[in-house]
C-alpha cells in the first residue's frame, strides 16, 4: 500500500500544479480557462526544444518555457478575455472562447512540432533506489521536489507580496478590490500569465513520465480540472490537496485493482464528490478562495 502511495506522489504533484492553475485563474479572474491543459503541452514542448534541440541546459529550459508560456497566457487574456469583457459577454461565452483557443493552440503545436510523440528524459537517473521493500527513482524525487517548491513559492507570493495580496483581494471581492484602486485589467493579466507559467512547469515535469504530444493537454488538463473540483475549485490549498489525492488514488487503484480501471475510478470519484460534497473534499464549510 505504502508503495503505491509513494508511486502516486510524482503524478500527484503534477496534477496538483495543473489543478492549482485552474483554480487560481478561476478565483482571480472568474474564468474557467479550458486552454490550461494546452499550457502544459506548450510548456513540455518548449522545454523539450530548449533542452533537447537547442541544448541550452535543463534549468534554462524551465525558465524559458515558463516565460514563453506566460506570454501565451497573457495573449489569451489580451485577445480573448478583454474584448469579451468589454462587450459584457456572459461567463459561458468566455469559457467557450477559451475552448476555441485550446483547439487553435493544439493545432499550431501540431504544425510546429509534428504528429510524432517526443521523448524528454531528465538529466538524472531513472534507476530506482531501494529502501527495504520501497523504491523510488531520483527522477521521481526531483519531480516531487520541484512541484512542491513551486507551490511553496506561489503560496508565499500570494500571502506576502503586495501584488499577491491584491490578487487574493480581487478573488474575494472584485468590486471592493476596484475600490482599493486595484487595476482589474492588470490582475486578469497576472492571473493568466502566472497560471500559464505554472502549467508550463507541470508540462516539463510530466514530460519524462509520458510522451510529449500535441494533444496531451486534453488528458492532463481534464485530470487537473477533476483534481481541482475534487479538492475545491477556486481554492489554492484545496486544489493542491486534490491533485495529490487523485494522483495517489490512481496509483493505488492501478496497483490494487487494475490500471485499466484507473480513469473509471477517478471519474467515479468526481461524480461522487459533485453529488455529495460539491464544494470539494478539503474545504471547510465556509467557502474559501485562494
Amino acid at each position, binding site marked *: 500500500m505504502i508503495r503505491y502511495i509513494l508511486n502516486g506522489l510524482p503524478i500527484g504533484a503534477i496534477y496538483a500544479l495543473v489543478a492549482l492553475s485552474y483554480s487560481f485563474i478561476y478565483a482571480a479572474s472568474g474564468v474557467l480557462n479550458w486552454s490550461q491543459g494546452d499550457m502544459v503541452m506548450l510548456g513540455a514542448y518548449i522545454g523539450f526544444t530548449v533542452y533537447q534541440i537547442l541544448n541550452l541546459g535543463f534549468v534554462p529550459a524551465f525558465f524559458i518555457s515558463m516565460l514563453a508560456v506566460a506570454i501565451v497566457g497573457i495573449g489569451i487574456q489580451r485577445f480573448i478575455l478583454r474584448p469579451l469583457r468589454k462587450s459584457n459577454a456572459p461567463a459561458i461565452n468566455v469559457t467557450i472562447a477559451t475552448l476555441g483557443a485550446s483547439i487553435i493552440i493544439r493545432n499550431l503545436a501540431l504544425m510546429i512540432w509534428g504528429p510524432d510523440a517526443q521523448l524528454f528524459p531528465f538529466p538524472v537517473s531513472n534507476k530506482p533506489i531501494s529502501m527495504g521493500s520501497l523504491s523510488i527513482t531520483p527522477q521521481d524525487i526531483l519531480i516531487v521536489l520541484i512541484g512542491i517548491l513551486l507551490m511553496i513559492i506561489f503560496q508565499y507570493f500570494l500571502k506576502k507580496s503586495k501584488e499577491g*495580496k491584491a490578487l487574493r483581494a480581487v478573488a474575494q471581492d472584485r468590486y471592493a478590490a476596484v475600490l482599493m484602486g486595484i487595476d482589474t485589467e492588470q490582475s486578469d493579466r497576472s492571473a493568466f500569465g502566472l497560471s500559464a507559467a505554472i502549467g508550463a512547469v507541470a508540462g516539463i515535469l510530466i514530460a519524462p513520465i509520458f510522451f510529449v504530444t500535441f494533444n496531451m493537454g486534453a488528458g492532463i488538463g481534464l485530470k487537473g480540472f477533476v483534481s481541482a473540483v475534487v479538492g475545491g475549485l477556486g481554492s489554492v490549498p484545496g486544489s493542491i490537496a486534490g491533485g495529490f489525492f487523485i494522483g495517489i488514488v490512481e496509483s493505488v487503484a492501478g496497483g490494487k485493482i487494475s490500471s485499466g480501471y484507473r480513469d473509471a475510478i477517478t471519474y467515479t470519484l468526481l461524480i461522487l464528490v459533485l453529488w455529495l460534497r460539491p464544494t470539494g473534499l478539503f474545504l471547510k464549510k465556509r467557502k474559501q478562495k485562494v
Partner: protein
Amino acid sequence: MLEIKGISASYGATEVLHEVSLKIEKNKITTLIGGNGAGKSTTLNCIMGIVKATKGSIILDGKDITKLRTPEIVKLGISLIPEGRHIFPNMTVMENLEMGAYSRKDSKAELKNDIDSILDFFPILKTRYKQLAGTMSGGEQQMLAIGRSLMGNPQVILMDEPSMGLAPIVVEEVFNIIDKIQGMGKTILLVEQNATLALNYADYGYVIELGNIALEGTGKELLSNPEVEKAYLGL
C-alpha cells in the same frame, strides 16, 4: 472641492440619473438622501468611475475626473465605503487595512505607522487584527471598512448606507466616528436611507427622487421641511 455638474447615467437603455448636480464642500458632511432605487448608489459609483456618466462632468479641485479610470480616481484621494461593507472576508483585519493603502506609494514604515494609528482609533479592531474579517460582526466589519478607507489617506470619503443592517447602538457609534473623521479634516458625502440621522449630522443635504435632485438645503432646513418630513422622516 468636489463638484458634480449635471451627470446622467444609464444601465443598458434605461437612464437612471438625470442631470444630477451636487456640490460637496471641503471639510463638510454633505448628505444625499432618498428612497430605494432613487439613484444614490449610482451617483457614488459614477464619481468613482465604476459607472460611466453619459452626460455632465465631475470636478475635483478644479480637475475634470469624469473620464478617469477608477484606480486613478482612488489615487487622487476619493474613497468609497460601499453599501454592505465589502470587506475581504478571508483576509485578516491587518491585511484588509493594508489593501486600503494599495494605491499609496509611501514607505513600509509610514504605512505601519498609519495602521497603528487606525488601530488606536478603532480599539475593537486592535484586539482582532489577526482575525479573519469575515468572522467579525456587522458593526466590526463596518468599522473595518471605514478604517480600510482611511488607510488610503483620502481627501473625500463617500459612504454608502453605513447604518444598513446595524443595531441602533452600533449605528450611533458609526455616526460618532463619521463626526470624528470630519474633525480630521476629511470631506464626506454620506448616502443614507435613514434620513433623520443623516440630516442631523449633515451640514448640507440633497434629496434625490427617481434620478433627479428634488430638494436641497442645510441639514436643519431639510429636517423641518414638511415635504421631507412626509416622505422620508416617517412622521
